[in-house]
C-alpha cells in the first residue's frame, strides 16, 4: 500500500508524521519504505538517519547540435515549447536550464544533426535505516528549477516502491511537484495546523487529492494553537480527522533537535499502527473511517 503525506501549507508537520508513521509500522514488522519526495528541501533523513549506500544521478537528456550538419533551418526552435533551443546568426544555441528533455527537437531535425547528452538535475540517495526502513530521497541541484524529473525518477526506484508499505513524504504546495509525489498513492494523509493559513492551504491540497481521485484524511498537528476552522471545514466537506497531535513545547523541542516524534512521545507508535489498520479497512470497504 502506498500512503502519501501532503499538506498545502509548509511546516505543518508532514515529515514529522511521515517519519513517525514509517517507524511505527516497521516496528510492527511490516516491510516499510520511506520516500522523501521533497527534493527541494529534503528533511526526513535527519530523523530516520539512514545509512546511505545507493546513489544515482538524475539527468535530463538535452540536445547537442552538430554545427557541421546543422543547416540553420530552425525547425528545432519551432517545435520547442520551452524556448530552450534558438537559431540565430547561423548558430543553434541550447539553453539547458529551460530544457525539459522531451527529445522533440532531436526527432524533428531533418539533418539528424542533434544528439542527446545528459544534463544533471540532481541526485537520488538511498539506504536502510537502523530500524530496517528502506529509505530514499532526491536532492535537486542548487539553481535547477525542475523538481519533477527528480521526484519521478525517485519513484521508479524499485526497491523502495516494492515494500509492503510505502510512505511518501511530499513537498508543500499544490502544484506539479506535489502532484508527481502523490500520483499512484492509495491514500493521502493531509497534515494541517488549525489556523487560517493552515485551513486556506488545506483547501488547495484537498482539491489536489480530488483531482487525483485518491481518498484522503486529515491529521491536525499543533492542535490547540489556533481556531476551529479546520474542524468545521472537515465536517462540511466530509473528510475524516484521523488524529490530533497537540501543541506541546516538548514535541516542538524534540523535533527541533532532530528527534523523531516517537522518541518524544512513544505512545504515538500504537496510534500510527492503529491508523494504518483503519486506512486499510476504509480502503477495502470503500468507506470513510
Amino acid at each position: 500500500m502506498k500512503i502519501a503525506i501532503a499538506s498545502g501549507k509548509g511546516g505543518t508537520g508532514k515529515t514529522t508524521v511521515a517519519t513517525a508513521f514509517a517507524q511505527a509500522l516497521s516496528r510492527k514488522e511490516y516491510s516499510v519504505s520511506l520516500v522523501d519526495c521533497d527534493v527541494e528541501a529534503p528533511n526526513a533523513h535527519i530523523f530516520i538517519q539512514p545509512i546511505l549506500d545507493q546513489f544515482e544521478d538524475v539527468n535530463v537528456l538535452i540536445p547537442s547540435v552538430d554545427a557541421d550538419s546543422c543547416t540553420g533551418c530552425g525547425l528545432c526552435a519551432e517545435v520547442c515549447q520551452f524556448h530552450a533551443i534558438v537559431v540565430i546568426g547561423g548558430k543553434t544555441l541550447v539553453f539547458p536550464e529551460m530544457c525539459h528533455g522531451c527529445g522533440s527537437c532531436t526527432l524533428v531535425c531533418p539533418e539528424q544533426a542533434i544528439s542527446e547528452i545528459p544534463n544533471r538535475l540532481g541526485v537520488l540517495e538511498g539506504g536502510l535505516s537502523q530500524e530496517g526502513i528502506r529509505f530514499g530521497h532526491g536532492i535537486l541541484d542548487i539553481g535547477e528549477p525542475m523538481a519533477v524529473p527528480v521526484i519521478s525518477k525517485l519513484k521508479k526506484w524499485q526497491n523502495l516502491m516494492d515494500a509492503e508499505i510505502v510512505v511518501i513524504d511530499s513537498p508543500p504546495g499544490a502544484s506539479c511537484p506535489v502532484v508527481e509525489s502523490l500520483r499512484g498513492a492509495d491514500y493521502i494523509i493531509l497534515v494541517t495546523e488549525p489556523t487560517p493559513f493552515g485551513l486556506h492551504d488545506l483547501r488547495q491540497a484537498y482539491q489536489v487529492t480530488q483531482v487525483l481521485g485518491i481518498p484522503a484524511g486529515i491529521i491536525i498537528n499543533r492542535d490547540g494553537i489556533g481556531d476551529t476552522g479546520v474542524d468545521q471545514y472537515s465536517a462540511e466537506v466530509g473528510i475524516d480527522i484521523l488524529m490530533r497531535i497537540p501543541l506541546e513545547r516538548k514535541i516542538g523541542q524534540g523535533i527541533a533537535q532532530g528527534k523523531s516524534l516517537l522518541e518524544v512521545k512513544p505512545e504515538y507508535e500504537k496510534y500510527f499502527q492503529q491508523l494504518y489498520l483503519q486506512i486499510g479497512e476504509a480502503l477495502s470497504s470503500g468507506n470513510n473511517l
Partner: protein
Amino acid sequence: MIIAISSTDGKFNTEFSPRFGRCNFFIIVDTDTREWESKPNPALNARGGAGPQAVQFLSGAGVEATITGRYGPNAYTTLEAAGIRAYVAEAGTPEELLDAFLSGTLEEVSSATGEELHH
C-alpha cells in the same frame, strides 16, 4: 548603424530600463540620423527565455548593438551568436546613452553581467 536601448516607458528623454529581457520597450535609433522609434518588447510576457527572444526580435530589426543595465547569460550568449555588440550603462536617458555610444565612452561587455533569469 541601428542600435537598441532598453526602456520602461518608450520615451527618448526619460531614464532607461536597466533590464534587458523583460523591459517594456526598446528604443531603436539610427546612429547616423538620430531618428528613433519605440517598439514594444515582444518578449515582455514571454513564457520563458525572454532574453533570447528579445535578441531575436532585435536581430530581425537590424540592430547591431544594444545598451542596457545588465544581461543574463542566455541573453548574452544569443547576442554573441547574432553578432550584436552588447554595451552596459548605469544610468541615462536613451538620448544621453546615444551620445555616450557615439563618443565611445560606453562599456562593451564580453560576458554576461547579470544573474541568470531562467524564466
